[in-house]
């Protein structure tokens, strides 16, 4: 019987990141994964011969460069190529594009509203203020305002100091920003319908809230706080699909003698005498270690793979109440060629980035209404990208791979999901695309349709929630996943969390895995192998 110093449950990107930092400190680490492939939601699979899909997550920005550098991911094969441009098509045949070159971007805003072009300067600066503030908390455990331990007090005073660096009016604005809806927030800057719709998309992605729901302004920040090589808010494509991210981390992990076991689903975390001692796999096999790290979401961790009587009652209760609503679907498509969008002028660079078809806030809100009625949006908001325009590894020459993220899609439509309903959901997306691209349907070779059900069943994200828990103020910072457990330590000694259910939350960021490793290594009195924040100043 082999034993390990640490076992990480789930080979998603955070689990792999966590395991690598533990291994770098000299621990013998095993990662166990229920699927026969690694990556969790950071995955690329060949479901149609010669086409590689980024089945779940599909663009990269939030992954912290500190972690990238510390794990040497470039030498382990990772390349993140910045994507350029984005476009929202209008129903009247026009479009709004966001270009890479700033003078061109500005003139395009002017085309829709001269005033909005100037307002975007104010908007960009304001958003940067909040980005700068929030970014300084990504690579650190959230401060615990209730603790009087010296380290916690110091960290909390760091938080206060950061806030203190804001001016009085900035503090007011920041509180407003955190609690407002994205629609109301953007309406303080912009007047053009299509610009409002274009900028608000990022704040509903993955979220069971609508553009008029309070709290959505923050979600925009969550999508804007990343960067590609210092360009804050930019997104990139991982060459080879998102699976390349987990493959590079796994390679870095294996270079530290880390072991990965796939097809190894954990049935239970073993607890003896009040401390975690190992895991029992589905087949009955038991593997022992003094440190057990769960990369599953908080609900699965505490309600599925831990025995209720090993846990304090309030943890069970908190886990049951944890807000983790699924609201997104995904359609991954193999294409025989590049679809044509006649609204765009020839050689337009705008299809190189994000493509959207929702041109008003009202349509966004209506899409949300359908979801509240347990239905997929009849007129969905999609975030469509065609990464094969940059990446030759995803499809054969001249052919293309399209990734379509869809908001909203219910966890369980009335009567539950059937194949028929799944097809109808996929058709609603394909029809919307073909409304703007007449040759699109002729190019279709294969499509993978994923509702929250598939995302839950295959990836293991409860309800298919891509963030492993809603990114609302009540579940952020020292309240993520819930009060008292925000510093990655579970209620049982030797048991830890490293998933996106913990601070700073979802997205392919690597920060929860890193922060968790730092806390574990501190408890074990091992050398801290995690990187320091580069800092914005």
């Amino acid at each position, binding site marked *: 019987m082999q034993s390990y110093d640490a076992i990480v449950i789930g080979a998603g990107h955070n689990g792999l990141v966590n395991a690598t930092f533990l291994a770098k400190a000299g621990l013998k680490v095993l990662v166990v994964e229920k699927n026969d492939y690694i990556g969790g939601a950071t995955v690329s699979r060949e479901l149609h011969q010669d086409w590689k899909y980024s089945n779940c997550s599909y663009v990269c920005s939030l992954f912290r460069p500190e972690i990238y550098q510390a794990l040497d991911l470039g030498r382990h094969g990772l390349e993140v190529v910045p994507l350029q441009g984005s476009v929202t098509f209008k129903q009247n045949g026009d479009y709004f*594009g966001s270009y890479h070159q700033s003078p061109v971007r500005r003139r395009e805003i002017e085309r829709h*509203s001269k005033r909005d072009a100037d307002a975007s300067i104010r908007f960009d600066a304001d958003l940067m203020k909040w980005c*700068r503030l929030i970014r300084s908390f990504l690579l650190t455990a959230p401060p615990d305002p209730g603790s009087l331990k010296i380290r916690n007090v110091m960290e909390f005073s760091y938080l206060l100091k950061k806030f203190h660096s804001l001016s009085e009016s900035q503090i007011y604005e920041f509180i407003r920003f955190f609690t407002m809806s994205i629609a109301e927030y953007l309406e303080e800057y912009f007047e053009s319908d299509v610009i409002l719709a274009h900028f608000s998309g990022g704040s509903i992605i993955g979220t069971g809230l609508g553009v008029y729901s309070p709290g959505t302004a923050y979600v925009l920040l969550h999508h804007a706080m990343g960067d590609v090589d210092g360009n804050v808010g930019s997104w990139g494509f991982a060459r080879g699909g998102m699976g390349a991210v987990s493959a590079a981390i796994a390679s870095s992990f294996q270079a530290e003698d880390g072991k990965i076991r796939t097809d190894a689903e954990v049935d239970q975390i073993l607890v003896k005498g009040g401390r975690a001692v190992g895991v029992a796999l589905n087949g009955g096999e038991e593997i022992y270690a003094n440190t057990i790290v769960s990369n599953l979401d908080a609900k699965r961790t505490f309600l599925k793979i831990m025995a209720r009587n090993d846990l304090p009652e309030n943890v069970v209760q908190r886990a049951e109440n944890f807000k983790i609503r699924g609201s997104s679907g995904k359609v991954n498509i193999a294409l025989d060629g590049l679809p044509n969008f006649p609204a765009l002028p020839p050689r337009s660079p705008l299809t190189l980035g994000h493509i959207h078809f929702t041109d008003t806030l009202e349509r966004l809100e209506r899409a949300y209404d359908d979801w509240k009625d347990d239905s997929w949006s009849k007129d969905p908001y999609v975030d469509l990208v065609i990464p094969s325009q940059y990446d030759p590894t995803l499809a054969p020459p001249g052919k293309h791979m399209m990734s379509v993220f869809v908001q909203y899609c219910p966890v369980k439509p009335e009567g539950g999901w059937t194949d028929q309903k799944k097809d109808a959901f996929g058709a609603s997306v394909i029809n919307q695309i073909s409304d703007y691209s007449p040759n699109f349907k002729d190019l279709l070779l294969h499509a993978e349709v994923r509702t929250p059900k598939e995302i839950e069943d295959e990836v293991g994200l409860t309800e298919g929630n891509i963030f492993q828990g809603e990114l609302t103020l009540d579940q952020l910072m020292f309240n993520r996943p819930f009060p008292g457990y925000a510093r990655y330590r579970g209620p049982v000694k030797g048991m830890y969390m490293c998933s996106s259910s913990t601070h700073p939350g979802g997205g392919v960021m690597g920060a929860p895995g890193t922060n968790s490793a730092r806390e574990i290594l501190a408890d074990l009195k091992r050398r801290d192998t995690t990187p320091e924040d580069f800092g914005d100043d």
Partner: protein
Amino acid sequence: MPPTIIQDINQHNFHEVLRPTPFHPRVDHNCLTKNWMDWNGYLTARTYDTLAAEYFAIRSSCSVMDLTPMGKYRINGPDANKFLNRLVTRDVSMLRPQRVSYVVMCNDEGKVLDDATIFHLSEGDYRLCCQHHQLDWLMISSLGMDVSIEEETHDVAALAVQGPTSASALKLAGIDEIEQLKPYDILHTQLHGFEVMVSRTGYTGDLGYELWTSPDNALNLWDAIFEVKQKGFYDIRTIGLSALEMVRIEAGFILPGDDFNTAETAIRADRVRSPYEVGLGWVVNLDKPSFTGKRALLDEKKKPIKRRLLRLEVSGNKAPQDSFLYAGKGGKRIGTIMTQIWSPILKANLAMADVEFAGGSQPNDIWAEIYYQKELEWRVSWAKGKVWNKPFWTHPRRSASPPGSY
């Protein structure tokens, strides 16, 4: 939101990253270096030929610069003056028609958004010129006022004609009344049958004028001026933004966005600056009943000043580019050089410097730590700074009326 502003639904040319101005055919022809830069989204020459020749065209003969990219807003309507007088810190309620005033705009916290010039074109009709995009701020500031605001940056072509022989050259070009113009005066006239507005304004600290016309007449205006050169009367040279940078620093003019962060673009709370801190206290009129930022500026006035943008002459000949400044050689760090040039007239390094005022007073011993290279080898030296409370360089011809012929 207030009503929508005019929209241009023509699809724009995304292949053209920087937009040509109406003078572009002539600018392009004259620009031998093809050393282009982005000014407000327009294709602008950094230098045309030789920087030294361009500089001395401004200081010794006559220079022409394409001013079109300067942000221009047309403001009129019953409340136009009321609007402007609330917008800026200076009292412009008495600004007469055909007169120009230099002003500064602050936000509610009394921090500088931009400096600007207000042209009172004719009774109740104004043009506001500024360095940065301000339409959004102007619209916000106009809430509740009966005023019309339109951006006209691309609808007005403008040339700066500056230098000792500028008046003589423009007279020969056909602007007969040029000599009547006093500093900050405006003249509406005709040139070869088209309308031109001439203002005795500029950013060089020298005798000079700015000429404004419709884009359709831009090339005619250009050609009328350069005809004077072709006839052999005066040398007239095109100048780029590099030469302008030299003369504006000599003349002590500030450049928002370069010398300090403008309030709208500042991300860090301590990067914003009040008019007092950038040396523009003289355009703040606290006696005015109300204006945007007044309460904050009244409060600030009561406390010792924290920092100032200083005109600093740095000894020696090593360029103090991006240099840190210290209280005493090797002393405490107290500031940074923001912009700097070598002045060919004064044979000195001139700089705009952001300097902390501990206890509200100006440090009396300011030193710059200068990194410079000789044949790719970097060295460090120290140079003492001297603060100038007045412009580094002035010349009586700038304000002489009538202007001399030089």
